Every structure is written in structure tokens, then in C-alpha cells.
């Protein structure tokens, strides 16, 4: 039999493609449906964040930090603010720390909800997406009540927070957690343990722990590979050491460690833990402290540099700030987790089917705003 004439085909996946979550372009070389080579092109959403930071004073950067990872703005603010505070070397009131942790964890839940919903959408299930957005809406209501905005908060300030918690926040937040925890069961029924979903995601696009560490993958994606590492526990910042909670590490209960399903399910379980942290923080919230008492009049750190990492919903968010003594940072570099997570795709994605590539992309939960900055 003569050899079949086969040719590889170059297909442009994106920048306008529903599975690329924004404006990512993957130049994929396919052999039939099998992806042989992936060449990611990023930068379609580049907004010169780092250049902007060299023009703005420390406080004015906060709204820009929000816009990097727009799904987890509170976490981004929290990390940035802590980095600057480390540079300034100031103490902040305990109530502020509690409020920040509550906000960060609520935003982690909100961000994971989006990750879950859109992942379902990538796999083809539409209803879970709307369910998760329905529940996320309630968190956004809490945020709007506190900070005035639903997405880009500018709430956590250097040395404090913009407002104290409004009246009725604590009750509403408890109410939300009581409402939310049973919903996790519903997601499990509808999506997580659906046989088709498992078939699509389990044992697909496996990232072994060594590969994950090599590529600098962090956060839920790293824990899905079985690496027990969480900055909140292992290098406790803020007041995370005061709460009792578990670091979720995938156990490969369906499929194997490091597959898409693990990456998905780590997020589901993490939401439960976050809810528990919020609950503990609400119970231990110190009363009556001025949340703005430590806000400095003028942020003028002395010369020096700091590299500070915090746990974002997508992984470890690092800020490298160099100060030259003025009120404008000399250099601000953001180590965005999704950027590092995505860089592994050309390695991990080779040899997958197109459908599995979509499943991989969705499971590493990228936010293009953060990748491109």
C-alpha cells in the first residue's frame, strides 16, 4: 500500500475563539485532530501596566492593580498593599487585617466560581455556568455594599481599607455562606461527577509535579499536581495563621494526579475552605477600630526593594517593587501567576486532541488581563 499523503495543518485558535477566554491566540499545528505543536501569542491586552506604575504614585496604582486580574481584584490589591506596607514597614490594625482576609477569601470564591462555570462552558455544559454566575452575583453584591463597586474595587488601601464594613454586612455574609455551601453539592451533581464530564477531563492533559514546578506553575494548578504548597499556610501573611483550614491537595480520586479534573476539583474544594475561613474571620472580627488609623498621609518608602508574594486564586502573585525614595515606584514588576501557568501550555499541550486542548486551557484558568498586564 502506498503511503498516504498527509500534511500538517496550521490553525489559528483565537484571538477570537470562545475557548481562549479573551484574546489569547494559539497557533496550533494539527495532524487531523491531534495537536502537534502549540505556539502561544499573547499581548493582545497589553496595557503597559508596568510603565504606568512608573508614572503614578503608590496609591494611584491600586486601581490599575485591580484591572490586571479583574476577576480577583481584592486579592491583587491585598498582595500589592502588603508589598508596599513591607516596604514602608508599618503596622496595621487587626480589624483591617480581618476585613482584608474576608474580602480576599470572598473574592477567591467569586473567582473560582467563574473558573468553574466557564470550564463547564468549555466542556459544553451551559447550565453550571449560569448557576455559578448566579451565586457570584451575591458576592458582588456584598462587595458593592462595602466598597461601592462590583468588579474593580479600589477598596484595600495602603495601611487600611477605604471604608469600614457597612451595617448588616456580617449578617448578610453569614447568610451567603449558609446559602452557598449546599450549592456546592449541586455543582457536584450537575457537573463534577457527571460521567461525560469525567470522561472529558480525567486523565487528560496531565501535568506531573516535576513539570509543574519546572514551569513555575503555582496555586490550585500546582496543588492539583499533588504538591502540598500554599503560601497562606506555609508562609503565612496577613492573619492566615489564626484560622483553621486545610490546604486542598488533589488526591486523584477520579483519574490521576495532575489531570484536568483534579485542577477543576481542587477549586471546588478550595471554595469550601475559603467559606470556612470567611466564617471564622467573621466570628473573630474585632470590633470598633478605626480602619484608617494607619493609612499614611504620604506614601514615601525609603530606598530599597521588596519582593512579596501572596496567594491569588490563580497562583502566587508576586510584586517586585524598587523604591528610590520618592512617592513613585522606580520599578514595579508583577509576577502574574497566570502568565507562568500559561507558559507551560506549549509543553503540556502537545499530542492532545483539539477538544482536550480546550479542556486544558479551561482548567488552568487563565485571565488574559493578568497575562498581558
Amino acid at each position: 500500500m502506498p503511503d498516504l499523503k498527509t500534511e500538517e495543518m496550521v490553525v489559528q485558535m483565537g484571538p477570537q475563539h470562545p475557548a481562549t477566554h479573551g484574546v489569547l491566540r494559539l497557533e496550533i499545528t494539527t495532524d487531523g485532530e491531534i495537536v502537534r505543536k502549540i505556539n502561544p501569542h499573547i499581548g493582545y491586552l497589553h496595557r503597559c501596566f508596568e510603565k504606568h506604575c512608573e508614572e503614578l504614585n503608590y496609591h494611584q496604582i491600586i486601581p490599575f492593580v485591580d484591572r490586571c486580574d479583574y476577576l480577583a481584584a481584592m486579592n491583587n490589591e491585598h498582595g500589592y498593599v502588603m508589598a508596599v506596607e513591607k516596604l514602608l514597614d508599618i503596622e496595621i490594625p487587626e480589624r483591617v487585617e480581618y476585613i482584608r482576609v474576608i474580602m480576599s477569601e470572598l473574592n477567591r470564591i467569586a473567582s473560582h466560581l467563574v473558573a468553574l462555570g466557564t470550564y463547564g462552558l468549555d466542556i459544553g455544559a451551559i447550565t453550571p455556568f449560569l448557576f455559578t454566575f448566579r451565586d457570584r452575583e451575591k458576592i458582588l453584591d456584598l462587595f458593592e455594599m462595602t466598597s461601592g463597586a462590583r468588579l474593580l474595587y479600589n477598596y484595600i488601601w495602603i495601611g487600611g481599607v477605604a471604608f469600614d464594613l457597612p451595617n448588616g454586612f456580617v449578617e448578610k455574609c453569614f447568610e451567603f455562606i449558609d446559602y452557598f455551601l449546599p450549592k456546592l453539592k449541586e455543582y457536584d451533581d450537575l457537573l463534577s461527577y457527571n460521567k461525560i464530564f469525567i470522561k472529558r477531563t480525567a486523565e487528560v492533559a496531565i501535568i506531573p509535579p516535576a513539570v509543574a514546578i519546572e514551569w513555575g506553575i503555582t496555586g490550585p494548578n500546582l496543588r492539583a499536581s499533588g504538591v502540598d504548597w500554599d503560601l497562606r499556610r506555609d508562609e503565612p501573611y496577613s492573619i492566615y495563621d489564626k484560622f483553621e483550614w486545610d490546604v486542598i491537595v488533589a488526591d486523584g480520586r477520579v483519574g490521576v494526579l495532575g489531570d484536568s479534573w483534579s485542577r477543576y476539583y481542587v477549586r471546588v474544594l478550595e471554595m469550601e475552605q475559603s467559606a470556612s475561613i470567611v466564617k471564622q474571620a467573621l466570628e473573630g472580627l474585632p470590633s470598633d477600630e478605626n480602619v484608617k488609623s494607619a493609612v499614611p498621609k504620604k506614601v514615601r518608602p525609603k530606598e530599597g526593594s521588596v519582593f512579596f508574594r501572596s496567594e491569588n486564586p490563580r497562583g502566587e502573585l508576586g510584586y517586585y517593587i524598587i523604591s528610590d525614595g520618592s512617592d513613585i515606584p522606580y520599578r514595579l514588576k508583577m509576577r502574574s501567576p497566570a502568565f507562568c501557568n500559561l507558559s507551560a501550555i506549549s509543553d503540556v499541550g502537545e499530542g492532545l486532541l483539539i477538544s482536550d486542548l480546550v479542556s486544558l486551557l479551561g482548567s488552568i484558568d487563565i485571565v488574559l488581563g493578568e497575562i498581558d498586564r
Partner: protein
Amino acid sequence: MDYFIQIVTDLLPGLNGLPQWLVIPSIMFLFGALIFTGIAIYSLIILWFERKIAAHMQDRLGPMEVGGWHGWLQTVADAVKLLLKEDIIPAVADRKLFKLAPYIVFLAAFAVFAALPFSDKIIGSELNIGIFYILSVSSVGVVGILMAGWGSNNKWALFGSMRSVAQFVSYEIPIGLSILVVVMSVGSLSMRDIVMAQDGGIFNWMIWQNAPFNFIAFLILFIAGTAETNRVPFDIPEAESELVAGFHVEYSGMRFSIFFLAEYANMLAVGIIASTLFLGGWQGITGASSAPGIGLIWMLLKGFLIVLVMIWFRWTLPRLRVDQLMYVCWKVLVPISFFNMVGAGIWIGLSS
């Protein structure tokens, strides 16, 4: 058809004046037009239903504005919008294939209706090989899909049509095997005979016959039928998160709406075929009614019910991968339907 000719000639006595060679074609044309409008109206209704059901399953309201009560005119408005939209043909497309493809897809879906028995009397053509005709005609649709994918000159569209062809060809087999079970127990390929064999109320329906065999055959027919109509969880030819929209990614306006119409027509066809074969066709729960209108209503009701379950599927399930789709067909449905057919054959042989 004879019955229909009777009615029409009774209603329009003027037709008798026409030459004989013109009467039959014009009445055929009339019947075709009726079916076409029927499909169009049904599509609008089922589309509205689908939106509302989807919305409520997702804790939403769905369309609420156009036409007043629960936006019942929304789909009509959308249809008008689609028809008025500019029809864009890509510059590098194969224009002839591109233009022709939607009509062929629709033609295949439409031709099936010629042999479907809507009631005792209303049947386009009473073929003695009715079910065989339906099987063969419906597989023409895949040619149209392949033309659409190739003619668009778009790689995603090509992927979609390639997947679609594989899917169509594979799922024909379990459908054929499960239909055979019914044909064996009735002993006829004629749709009318099949319905007549289920006379006498709900317990005589084919689905309950031959112990578990017919029931399994019904399930297989339903699953494979869902796959044939490219519905979730088998919608991989159009998988919007993978292939954007698959074979109809380049279509817009009216041509797109024809694809849409064909999909919904196919859904209704699957519903009607399944209910004819297994659910007693035009006969009610207590048995056939003598009034012709009642039969039609029963038939549409049953077809509708099956379409609703398909909609329910769509808003619940994720999508299979292309190799898993083949797995489900060749390793699950085909063996089961094959053993099911053999088992049914033995059962029929023993019981007769």
C-alpha cells in the same frame, strides 16, 4: 395522499377542471407547502419553548418582552431579523457549494416528512417501505453538511464537517439495528402497518413488547437519534467552544436560518419516528380515535414530548469528545443493539 387529494378536490371543485397531469403535482405542491409551513411554525414554537425551558432551568426568565406574555413573539422577531440580515459569502469560499449546502441539508430533513404518518389519513406518501425510505433519505443530509464545511473554506468548518460525517455514518448503524427489532415484530416496513400493529391502548405499544428488547431498542433509537440531529451531548460538529460553530461558522442570515430550521425539523422527525415505531403513533393512550384531528394531535404531542427530552438533555449535559463519540457508538450502542436484535429475534421466534 389519496385522502388528501379527496379533501382538496372536495374543497376546491375548480381543480377538477384542470388537466389530470396537473392536478396531482399541484396537490403535491400544496401538501409540501403545508408541511413546510408546519415545520416553520413548529420550529418557532419549539425554539421559544427551548429558550424558556433553558432559562427556567438556569433560574432565569428568558425572553419576556416581545409580544407581551412571556415574549411569545420573540422567535418570530428573531426569524424576521435573520431573514433580513445581510447574507455574507466569504471571498474565498466555493460559492456554488456554499450556497447550495443549506438547501440540501434542509431537503434531507424535509423529504423525511413525506413518509411520516401524522395520522390515520394524513400521510404524504404511503410507501410500503416507509421506514427504509426514511433511513436512506435522512442520510443525504450529511452530504450537505460536508458541502457546507468544504465550501466555507474555513479550517474550523472543515473540522466540523469531518466530525459530522464520521458521526452520521456511525450512528446510522444502531438506528438501523434498533428499527429492525420493530420491523421484525411487526413484519412490515410500512409505517401504517407498524402503527396499526400497536392498536388498542398504551399496553399494546411497541415499547412494551418483547420483554426488555423493544425498550432497549427505543432507548438506542432515541440516543442515536439525538446524535443524528447534532444535539448535546453529541453536538461535536458544531461544538462552539472547540470549533467556534463547526460547519456553519461562515453562514449568516437566511442560509444560517435554514440550517437552524433543518436541525429542528430533524428533531421533530426523530420524535415522530420514535413515537410511530414505539409509542403507538397517532393512537391515543386508550386506542385510536376515529376523528382525524385527534390522531394528528396525539402524534404531534408525542413527537413534542421526545423533542422536549432532547432539549432537557441539552441544558444538562456536557459534550463528548470526538473519539468518545465513536466509542459510544461502536463499542456501546452497536454491540448492545446487535445483541438486542438477536435476542428479540429469538424471543419472537419462541413466542410465535
